Each structure stands twice: as C-alpha cells, then as structure tokens.
C-alpha cells in the first residue's frame, strides 16, 4: 500500500517525536541575509524576544554586495536549535541558514590581547606567542599587544596561559566559519 520509503504503521507505539531536542553542543549558524538597514536588529531582536542567548555574533559582507553573512554561535544544551532556525527562517530578510557540522567546518576567530609585561616575563610571553602562532602588533615599555587567530578553544587556551602574566584587556571578534571542501557554506 505505501510507496517506497513510507513505513507501514502497525501501531501508534512506533511513532517517535521529532524536534525540540537539545543537542548539548555548541552550534555555529551561518545565516545569509539581505544587506538592508535594520536586518541585524531583526535577528538580534528575535533572539531577545524568544529568550535565546547568542554566545558570539559576527557580521560582514559576502562576495555578493546585496547579501551579508551573520555567523553566530549558541549553546545547543540550552536551546532547541531547530526552533531557533525555524524562527530565524520566518524573518523575511533571512535568505539561508546553515547549522554547520563541526567536522566539516573551519571556524576562526581573531583576538587581540594587551598584556602587562615587565622585564624578564617578556621573553616567556613571546615564546608562548610563537607557539600559538600569534603576532606582536604593538610594543611599549611595559606592555605588548598580541594578535591571535584560531578556533575559540585555541584562543581560550592562550588566554589562560597569559593571564598570570597580567592580562590588561582582551577583545575577540566572535567566530566566523566556512564549510570545508568545494561546496558553499
């Protein structure tokens, strides 16, 4: 009776609920939106209105000037991601959403660290900087600014290592991401 792929239902017990699941991991959503005034407000406002928390948010142009990309990360332990994406899809200015698979995604974040370094500590910090592939972009008598690119894990690891030396301040961009391989994100 059923066409291929339609399972024969014998009893209601076989039915399983879909959706509304907490995945328990970090999600990176890559959202293409129309490049129009107020679109970011609509996205941010939706998160506020639905009590979803954004962990990081990065917005920038794409290769098409009429389209911007919003990359945001959120915690799948707290939010049902499918509900978040479905609500986002309802925004008329949202063109495409991808919930990026961690294994198939390159995610990078840029961070700037201003470190207090006096005398002998300087060499140690520079060594850490080299190990992490960071660059010193500003030097003064008593401080250094280090530029570091990488996954959020790497940036957090660097932060915890340099913090004892005296972290004056830090600024991070939030992750941006792109799919591995030939396919579009």
């Amino acid at each position, binding site marked *: 009776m059923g066409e291929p792929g339609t399972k024969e239902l014998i009893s*209601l017990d076989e039915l399983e609920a879909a959706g509304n699941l907490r995945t328990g991991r970090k999600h990176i959503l890559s959202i293409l939106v129309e490049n129009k005034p107020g679109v970011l407000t*609509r996205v941010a*406002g939706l998160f506020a209105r639905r009590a979803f928390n954004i962990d990081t948010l990065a917005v920038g142009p794409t290769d098409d000037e009429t389209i911007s990309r919003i990359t945001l990360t959120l915690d799948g332990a707290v939010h049902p991601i499918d509900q978040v994406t479905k609500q986002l899809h309802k925004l008329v200015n949202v063109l495409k959403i991808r919930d990026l698979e961690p294994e198939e995604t390159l995610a990078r974040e840029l961070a700037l660290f201003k470190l207090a370094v006096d005398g002998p500590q300087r060499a140690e910090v520079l060594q850490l900087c080299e190990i992490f592939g960071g660059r010193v972009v500003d030097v003064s008598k008593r401080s250094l600014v280090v530029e570091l690119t990488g996954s959020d894990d790497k940036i957090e690891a660097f932060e915890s290592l340099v913090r004892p030396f005296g972290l004056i301040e830090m600024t991070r961009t939030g992750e941006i991401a792109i799919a591995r391989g030939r396919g579009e994100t």
Partner: protein
Amino acid sequence: MRAVDALMECLKAEGVEVVFGLPGGANLPTYDAFYDAGIRHILVRHEAGGGHAAEGYAKATGKVGVAFGTSGPGATNLITAICDAMMDSVPVVFITGQVRTELIGTDGFQEADILGMTLPAVKHSFMIQHPLEIPRTIHEAFHIARTGRPGPVLVDIPQDLSRADIPYEPVNDVHLPGYQPTTEGNQKQIRLAAKALANARRPVIYAGGGVVNANAASELRELVLSDRFPITCTLMGLGAFPAPHEQWLGMLGMHGTRAANYAMDEADLICAIGARFDDRITGKLSEFAPRAKFIHIDVDPAEISKNVPAHIPIVGDAKNVLARLVTEYRALSADRARLEDWWQRIAGWRAQYPLRYEDTTDTEIRPQRAIQAVFEATGGEAIVTSDVGQHQMWTAQYYDFPEPRRWINSGGLGTMGFGLPAAMGAAVGCPDRTVVCIAGDGSVQMNAQELATCAQNAIPVKVVIINNGYLGMVRQWQELFWDKRYSHVDMGSYPDFVKLAEAYGATGVRLTDKTTLVDDLKAALATEGPVVVDVRVTAEENVYPMIPAGQAARDMVG
C-alpha cells in the same frame, strides 16, 4: 504622479474596499490623496479603534484589513492592534506617516521609531527609503500579510517621500527571495497521519484558528465525518466545526468542557490542525495529554514542536493538507467500531459534566442566560465579536457557532476594548449580517469612543454589555486564588451606558428582567443604527469549569 496617489492606485489594485484611519501632520499628503481617490475611508476616533476595526474586517471577510495612522502617537496607538493581529494571525496592513527624512533621529515633533518599537510584533515591516519604493513595497506588504501564516505588516512612510513625484507603473509581482511559505503538505507524512488515525483507539481532533484562516472548515468537517472522530476547537477555532453536533465536544482549554479536556487527557492520538498548543490549552505542559501521540498540521513550521513535540509534523496550508488527508484516510477503510469504547467513555463525561449554571428564581439575569438569550434572539445567525474577560468565555461556552468567521475575538493577546471596533469593521465588511458585540462593562470603555464612528457612518453594530460592575475575570481570580481580596476591580455603575449611547448618537437600552430578555433583545437588534444594550447581570458569577492556571486537565474545578 505623487507617491501618495500611486499608493492609492496600489490599494485599489489590491482590492481594498475600506481603510480605517485618522489623519495627522505626517500623513497629510496621504489624506490629501484620499480626498478624491475613490476609496472608502472611515474616520475613527482613536487609532487603536482603527487597528481593531481593520482586524474585525479581516476576520469577518478573510480579506486584508487596512489601518492608517500618523507618526508618533498616531503610530504608537496602533501598537496594541499590531500585537493583537500578530498573536491571532490576522492579515492587516498598517500604514503610518513618519516625520520628514531630515528630521529622523532628531527627536522631531511627533517622531517615534515605530519600526523599531513594533519589530517583535510584526510579520514584517518596511521603512520607505525612497519614493520609488512605495508601489512595490505596498504590494509586498499585502502579499506577506495574506499568504502563509497571515499577520500584520507595517509600512512607515516619511512625509517628504510620500509627496514626491514618481513615475507610476503598476507592479504585478513581488520580489521576496527570503519569503517562500510552504503550503503543500508532504504526501508521505499525510499518508502516515492517515494510518495513525486509522490505528488510533482514542483519537481527538483539535482544531484552531488556522482552520478558519485557511478557509478549511468544509475540509475539516469531511475529516471529522470520515469516521466518528471526536472534535474540539480552541477559542480561535470556534465555528470551524458546526456546533452543536454529536461529534462536537465543545471548546477545550482553561474554560473548555470537561468532555473536551478529559478526552485530550486520555487520548492516544491528537491531530492538531492550525492550533499552537497555547498555555490556555495545555495547562501544565508536563502533564498535558500524557498518553497521546501528536499529528501537527500547521502552515508555520516554527509552531510545530514549539511547545509539544510532534510525532507526525505536516507543514502546509490546512485546506490543502486536510483535503488530501481525507482522501488517504477513506482509502484505508478503517474499522469504525474500534471507536465504540471511546465514545462510551466520552458519553459518560458529557452526561456527568454538561455545561451548567444555577439559574435564579426571580427576574435577575445570570450572565450565562444573557448569552443564551443573545443566541436565541439572533437565531445563531449573527457575527459575534467580544471583548476579553468573563463575557468572552461565557460566549464561547454558550453561543453555538454554526460557521467560521462568525466569532471574532482577541484570543492570543487578550485585548480589552477589541470587541466594539472589531464589530465595526465586521459590519463594514459584511453589511448584510447582524453584527453583535458582546462586551464587558470594563472592556467596552476601552474603545467606547468608536460609538461616534458607528453613529456618524450609520454602522449598525449592536453592543450587548454584560454588565456586572466588575472587572469580572480579575475579580474571579481574586475570589478563587487571592482570598477574596478584591483589589481595584469594582467599576461601580459607571458610566450610565444608556446616556453614553445617546450622547454618541446611538440608541441605549437597559435590560434587567430575565423573563422578557429574549424579546427585549430582539427589539434592540431590530432597532436601526448602532444600539447599546446594558444588560445588568448577577455581579459575582464565575466562569466554570476552569483549569486553574498551570494545572492539568484533571484538576478542573467548578
């Protein structure tokens, strides 16, 4: 031509019959265009009244309602109507004037960031940046308001742009790459749903306002009658299935019938159609319908599994999906006898717990009796609007709606003051029908100024005030859950509604005698023009049965 004249051409192209609005500084150009545009415009007395009138018009006719307001306070006065239309999925286009572009951001006179203020409460909104955008934007606004899950769309037009000259070319398409609502349900899912229904021993069909919006009442009826499926509707869905009927359980939810709520509680399969599992339906979510699997049919994918995880989700227009579901279900030739035990169980609840109230032995009018009298006086043939509160629930319980679009009320937002302007809009949209607003003495005062609009335009709404001198629903909650500490709910006998009606140029009648109530109401309904009927009812009557907030169906009281 001026952009505002192009705007009028766009409204005509959209088939707009009537606009409800109020002019002001920032939309003076628009109102100049109205002067000879040949579009009916009804001058309301408050923009909120205009917004709700546009909603009432939309709900009664199924067409897109239109409301205009000026900038600043004109626009902010529309916000309640915008929120209301969002919560109840009402297609309305709101067009506001905005201060001149050079003043935007300067806190200019009557400047308000209406776009920003309404962002969480609109289906979509547009701020006009260039006069050339106006025609396309207007058509896109109507397209978004009416398609998919309907809702409010705001268009904010700065004054200087509205008076600019533009070359006008009719627009016949829309360009909305990010807006493609799914209307066709997935065939495999529909087939699976049919099989689940055929396997269910204790099914319930639970229909909401989405069925009304999709004009799918006849398809719903086909489904219900394709077997002996018990059917219940939400407050917004009343009329989607004709009441009374042997398969009709009555409304469900906080003030629904026990038969409907207990059936949901014991069901093994619930088929939700155009309904969104609101907290007034589910009560305590963790104890809602604990034995049931769920089919959920909705045109808005985000509603599916939002509150209750669906086992068979079907995204699509209810009319489209139900028609195919009926075909699939009939092909299965399910055994009708399997529902016999279920119907016996339901019959037991119906017999044991009918809707009931203690009637009086003297002439005093019980509010429930007043609703029944309105039903008798109208023969159930009227379009009925209501405000929000006890009278609304009694109407939902005691007025049987035979068809969709006969019952117009504010369900999601629960907006007091909705009923009178909504009745006005419904009467303008359906001039051949009797339109009755069943109001509370508290609620009606929130938009009573629209009586002037009705009188001036000979809009013959009949306003039946269920007058108990209280903010009755709040008083009921204070009685039941706050130790009868009646805090600020006593409205006294103010105003004198008969005099108020007369002052507005309407007819006023006061009714206090149960024995002549139906005849008196008939006489009032037969009176020309707008009529206000002040029905004095028992002051401290409660709406029962009731699921106390946050509790489960099994905890029903009264």
